[in-house]
């Protein structure tokens, strides 16, 4: 029984891999799973068989996540693979992302929900542009922890000087970034040094192994429990015999704590009312906080629909049509200055126009290139958009859920950009 309780109480850490192509991300995830005995027998047999067929020496652990036919053919990761495992201490959701610049959007996909990033560096090549791009994206996404794994130490004779040099190179770059917590670990993903087991080849390293770090790093909640935000997703109107007049507002709490009896303001109408009940399938609850999915009823009968938001009178988000965002562009088609896009934000959908391109980032130097007005695939820049109707938002830094947007191309319907409200 106590074990069951243990499972339900277990902490969850979501982490992502990052770093340039071939730096060993997938191999590291394979090694992590292998050394922590999280690979099943039939999976292992398949890996051995496939590795042999491909004429490789030993077992290619990267095949554990590189599961698509074309990934195996090309020996690279193309899209994110999600893997799950648990140790007695924690439960983990891993996103193994591609390093190739062409697939940066898939890296962003995997990293957008992570609490920690494993940033791999090939010890022979050091910090290169793609390492910097991924580190920058991780900082923009506000991933609180980064573990810089300096990999392939076996190919540099496990030399401490190589490690120290890369570490200080990274530090001088990252001092310009906003990353709360950085760790450096010398590893060999191929041989398992400092992954789960301590390396016998690097006595000079006194820090923890990667696994120890993953199991022990402090993870606070990344939810905002201060600013009350409840975007309406769906209006529940049963119109049944049992519930003839029920009108509930279904959604997920994206910030703060709500209780029955609380006064709330409805955006955009500005009407005020009081929460009558917070309902779930399992009964009414006394309070609801992010990220709970609930259904609320109000004491007054007012017109509320999808896209509206319930907030507190004295703590409102910004309600504006001109919005400054940092964007990662993710489409082959360049951003069109003054172009029109569909914008998705919480449960809102609107149209917007790119009013101004303020600058594009130089990934290598982190300089703002204010004369560069062209934003294309994999570029990061700051823009101002104007929306067709007011959005209710906070800065991304204050609340990930109400400070993030995507842009959708109206001709192809593709998601072309991820944006963080400044």
């Amino acid at each position, binding site marked *: 029984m106590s074990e069951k309780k243990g499972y339900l109480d277990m902490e969850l850490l979501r982490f992502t891999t990052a770093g340039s192509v071939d730096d060993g991300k997938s191999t590291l995830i394979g090694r992590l799973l292998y050394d922590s005995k999280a690979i*099943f027998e039939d999976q292992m047999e398949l890996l051995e068989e*496939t590795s042999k067929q491909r004429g490789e020496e030993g077992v290619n652990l990267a095949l554990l996540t590189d599961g698509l036919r074309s990934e195996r053919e090309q020996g690279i990761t193309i899209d994110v693979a999600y*893997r799950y495992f648990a140790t007695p201490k924690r439960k983990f*959701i891993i996103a193994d992302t591609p390093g190739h610049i062409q697939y940066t959007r898939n890296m962003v996909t995997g990293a957008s929900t992570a609490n920690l990033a494993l940033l791999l560096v090939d010890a022979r090549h050091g910090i290169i542009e793609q390492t910097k791009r991924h580190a920058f994206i991780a900082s923009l996404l506000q991933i609180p922890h980064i573990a810089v794994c300096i990999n392939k130490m076996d190919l540099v004779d496990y030399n401490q000087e190589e490690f120290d040099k890369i570490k200080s190179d990274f530090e001088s770059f990252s001092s310009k970034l906003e990353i709360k917590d950085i760790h450096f670990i010398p590893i060999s993903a191929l041989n398992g040094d400092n992954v789960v087991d301590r390396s016998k080849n690097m006595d000079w390293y006194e820090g923890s192994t990667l696994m120890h770090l993953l199991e022990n790093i402090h993870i606070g909640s990344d939810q905002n429990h201060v600013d009350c935000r409840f975007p309406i997703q769906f209006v*529940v109107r049963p119109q049944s015999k049992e519930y003839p007049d029920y009108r509930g507002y279904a959604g997920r709490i994206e910030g703060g704590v709500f209780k029955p009896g609380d006064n709330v303001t409805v955006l955009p109408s500005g009407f005020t009312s009081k929460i009558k009940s917070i309902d779930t399938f399992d009964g009414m609850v006394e309070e609801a906080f992010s990220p*709970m999915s609930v259904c609320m009823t109000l004491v007054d009968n007012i017109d509320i629909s999808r896209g509206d938001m319930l907030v507190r009178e004295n703590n409102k988000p910004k309600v504006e049509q001109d919005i400054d965002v940092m964007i990662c562009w*993710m489409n082959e088609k360049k951003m069109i200055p003054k172009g029109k896009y*569909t914008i*998705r934000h919480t449960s809102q959908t609107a149209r917007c126009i790119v009013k101004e391109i303020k600058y594009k980032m130089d990934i290598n130097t982190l300089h703002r290139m204010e004369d560069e007005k062209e934003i294309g695939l994999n570029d990061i820049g700051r823009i101002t958009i104007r929306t067709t109707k007011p959005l209710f938002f906070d800065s991304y830094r204050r609340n990930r859920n109400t400070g993030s947007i995507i842009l959708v191309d109206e001709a192809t319907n593709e998601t072309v950009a991820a944006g963080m409200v400044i």
Partner: protein
Amino acid sequence: MSSYNLTHLMELESEAIFILREVAAQFEKPVMLFSGGKDSIIMFHLARKAFHPGKVPFPLMHVDTGHNFPETIEFRDRLIKETGETLIVKYVQDSIDKGTAVEEIGINASRNGLQTVTLLEGLEQGKYDCALGGARRDEEKARAKERFFSHRDEFGQWDPKNQRPEIWNLFNGKKKMGEHFRIFPISNWTEMDVWQYILHEKLELPSLYFSHKRDVVIRSGVLLGKCNYIQLKDSEQWVEKNVRCRTIGDMTCTGVTESNAVTLEEIIEEVATTKVTERGGRADDKRSEAAMEDRKKEGYF
């Protein structure tokens, strides 16, 4: 403030409910695929939670190969009756009779692959623009690559090399006429999460999931239960064993596992210590290295 923490299981539940509501809001005519297996049962339960006290705003659809375990069908029909929700059944046999699907022949013949034809026909007939499924990323290496909102072209095909980015929880369900989406709200659940949730929610399951006596034949390492659709080779024979299902699918390709677990607690114990994956007993996955990816590209789940 630290008291405001959801357990990971409740976080998964909330994520799934959020996605179900997005589906109801973003699509015109969704449908939920329902096989009577444990993942379907959880999906259905989550859908009832998401729209409570209203009804589930979309029907369920079962693609029936005609080779189901009878226990699954009994369970399915009872659940629908008790909850008053709507179920549509599409028969692979109808596609075969029409000539759009061709029955496989030979000793390992299965109707599993033919499901895709019937499924796509069913979606087209009902003009459904989105099909909800209970596939999970931990099941299989191609599924590990799937988005929550998975875009399909007008032929129902998946293009794994060119998936839409899916950032945070901002789901983009926009599509052209004729295209549709497959949506997987429980993508992030593991087999263990599923069992823990079933226990937590006290969900009822078909008896097949619990240990029972059954005649089986062992074929390429997979234990197949006795039924009219499996022919024995000369060298094979039925033997009685204590078994249970870890997944439920077509009888011709769903392996059972030897087990004495008769309660949920015992099953959880077993899942915690097992050395083979859940689909390790699925003959349909064993056909080739990329069997699942290939089927998915054609429009399978």
